[in-house]
């Protein structure tokens, strides 16, 4: 027998073993089953499921558990349907399966109400690939609406994300919120009331944003640090600014470019800016149609850009006049090689916001339709003109190079030096 020193507790355990009871089962009478309370999920064993549905979730006493349970149980490639009705959700809903479709009865009748949400920064978070969300409304999330987290092929089709309070700081920041994704489709959808951008796509590729409506947001649509997006046939109206194409510093994906924005109706974006101080979007003055910030090679064509109190389009570098200083040596602050052509500008600049008046440097209203910062990257060779921001065939649109980098000293309304063309970008199929 080995001599050893045991604590009192150790001795008790030895006696508890009772000799060689071996792997004694300590507790008796355990009969566990997976518990999903208040089950309101049918999988076809009772009443027949609607066509195309592998499961149907109905509103009930514990919507977070039934909806999340159905999504956790959904096999890859299956469709989880939601019945008409309002689902009360106090917890973020997640979709982690691949190829899963979440489908409501219709956008108007299947409402995911997140008014009571107190757990999770999003209404819905998607981490699976090839996920489709369709025919439902996400309402009043405290945080962001529907996030896509570094996934492949996320599709939002016929979805509404809305906040019912008007211009409220309590509204979430982003309605549609895919980040770091390859393959993003946002179509036939609606967003109202976002405190930052209603439709936002960040650090992604393979992007189509088409046939959507965005109003009552600070930014209607924002493409940020992303490349090759197609933004078409959207109606962005009554936001603070209609469509933003931005590059920001300090992010892993740095050099977004080559957004093609065409056949959008961008009008009357004159909403006061209700963004949170400290965010980049809070610096955007109200009354802008388009803004390109620090991004190259974008093409803006065949849009109607009308009724903006400040201006139709601003193209600017990331300037510390407008934005906070930063530490990112790789960041390219300039906006170059953009191509703005064949747009209809009308009724812009009647009552410019303070910042716009400031950069007009004494020029009287109306502000011009097109405002270019005039900043040139001295380290870059532009002998072939590829870096020039070009404007072509925009009807009678008025123009100002406001010489941001020269302290507004050498402003010019002569559009001839920037009347030029670049090769067209190819729209997504």
């Amino acid at each position: 027998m080995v001599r050893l020193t045991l604590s009192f507790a150790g001795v008790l355990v030895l006696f508890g073993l009772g000799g060689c009871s071996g792997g004694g089962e300590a507790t008796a009478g355990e009969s566990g089953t997976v518990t999903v309370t208040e089950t309101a999920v049918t999988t076809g064993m009772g009443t027949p499921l609607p066509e195309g549905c592998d499961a149907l979730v109905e509103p009930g006493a514990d919507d977070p558990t039934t909806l999340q349970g159905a999504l956790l149980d959904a096999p890859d490639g299956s469709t989880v349907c939601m019945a008409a009705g309002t689902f009360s959700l106090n917890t973020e809903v997640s979709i982690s399966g691949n190829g899963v479709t979440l489908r409501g009865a219709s956008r108007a009748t299947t409402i995911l109400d997140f008014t009571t949400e107190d757990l999770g920064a999003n209404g819905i978070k998607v981490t699976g690939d090839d996920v489709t969300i369709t025919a439902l409304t996400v309402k009043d999330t405290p945080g962001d609406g529907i996030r896509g987290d570094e996934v492949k092929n996320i599709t939002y089709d016929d979805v509404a994300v809305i906040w019912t309070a008007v211009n409220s700081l309590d509204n979430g920041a982003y309605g549609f919120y895919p980040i770091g994704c390859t393959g993003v489709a946002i179509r036939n959808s609606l967003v109202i009331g976002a405190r930052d951008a209603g439709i936002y796509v960040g650090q992604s590729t393979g992007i189509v944003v088409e046939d959507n409506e965005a109003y009552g947001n600070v930014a209607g649509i924002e493409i940020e640090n992303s490349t090759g997006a197609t933004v078409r046939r959207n109606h962005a109206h009554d936001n603070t600014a209609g469509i933003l194409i931005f590059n920001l510093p300090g992010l892993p994906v740095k050099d977004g470019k080559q957004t093609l924005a065409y056949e959008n109706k961008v009008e009357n974006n004159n909403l006061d800016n209700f963004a949170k101080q400290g965010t980049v979007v809070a610096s955007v003055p109200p009354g802008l149609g388009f803004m390109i910030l620090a991004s190259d090679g974008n093409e803006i064509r065949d849009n109607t850009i009308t009724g903006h109190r400040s201006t139709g389009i601003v193209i600017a570098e990331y300037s510390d006049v407008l934005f906070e200083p930063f530490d990112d040596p790789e960041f390219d602050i300039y906006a170059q090689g953009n191509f703005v052509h064949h747009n209809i500008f009308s009724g812009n600049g009647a009552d410019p916001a303070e910042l716009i008046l400031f950069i007009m440097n004494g020029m009287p209203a109306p502000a011009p339709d097109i405002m270019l910062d005039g900043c040139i990257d001295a380290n870059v060779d532009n002998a072939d003109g590829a870096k020039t921001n070009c404007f072509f065939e925009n009807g009678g649109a008025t123009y100002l190079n406001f010489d941001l980098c020269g302290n507004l000293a050498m402003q010019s309304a002569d559009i001839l030096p920037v009347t030029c063309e670049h090769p067209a970008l190819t729209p997504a199929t």
Partner: protein
Amino acid sequence: MMKRTIWAALALMLVVTPGCDEADPCDGPTRCQAPGVLPLATLGEYDFFVGPMDQLAPKRGVVPYTVAAPLWSDHAGKDRFIVLPEGGKIDLRSDDGEWGFPEGTILVKNFFFDHDRRDPTAGFRIIETRLLLREAGDWRAFTYVWNDEQTAATLLRTGKRVNVEFKDLDGASKTEEYIVPNDDQCSSCHERDDVEHALGLITPQMNRMVERDGKQVAQLTWLAGQELFTAPPPDPATLPGFIDPYGAAGTLDQRARGYLHGNCAHCHQAGGGAGKSGLVFLASEQDLAKVGVCKVPAAAGAGTGGNTHDIVPGKPDESIVIYRMNSLDPEIKMPELPNRVIDTAGLELIRSWIAAMPVDLACQ
């Protein structure tokens, strides 16, 4: 609580009792897998414990461990165990990468609340036991929720909100809501680049002094003595180790960086849930701009609190990191999901750390 568990474990390991081998063929530093398809329906079926299960007294082969910079978890107490499959061993690493575990490994973590924080011997309520199961080169995460009688814990995949009552350090009675995660919420911290990770089983977290048999010993040395590693580890003094965030040793910077790694880096690193923010809280990140110094936030939204940079050296109350750590608003709070109670000690630590940063790095 932890002390009692250690003594029980040691007692089991030291006893030589003739004639027991046929009753427990796996009596050794590793375990045979319990019968049944994983995950099993109840915790008891895994056969990890001896005696009444709520004593959490581990069998031999259920090896206890602790980490240097634990996750806050609303001040829940935690018991952590490694259960290796029969004959399995761990590949230790010399850097801060995750240890290599064989197929069939199970990592166990019990979460409990003392009834009275002034007196840990007064008993505790176990809320949940989380498992990570190693399968096909990946981990699968599951949790088992304990019944009020503390006799059984049952697999639950859809999460639960549990009201926990206890007496706080000042004697006041409190009730807090504690979140048992659903399957996807486990992934929100444990998943990186589509693969799940064990977060605490890295050398900087594991390389610390622990008490065994009344003496201070290096945990890595002790684990090696339990025959858990494929090869003898290097001298622990030559390996990285986080400093206890609340201890007296080390520098403020070391303590803060260890805290941030343990509480934030699972999301705040490339490939993690906050990878695209560009804000990195790995203790190994050398570029202070990436750690947030004078960093403009990407998409903090309401989380800015009106501030403009993640960390403003010398000015914690103008720093977004502090603002977000100090909030319980779901849109603002950091961490995003797991805690319902602010970690005031952690907040103080990070506040001190930012306050001590030289102002000549400042973002004007």
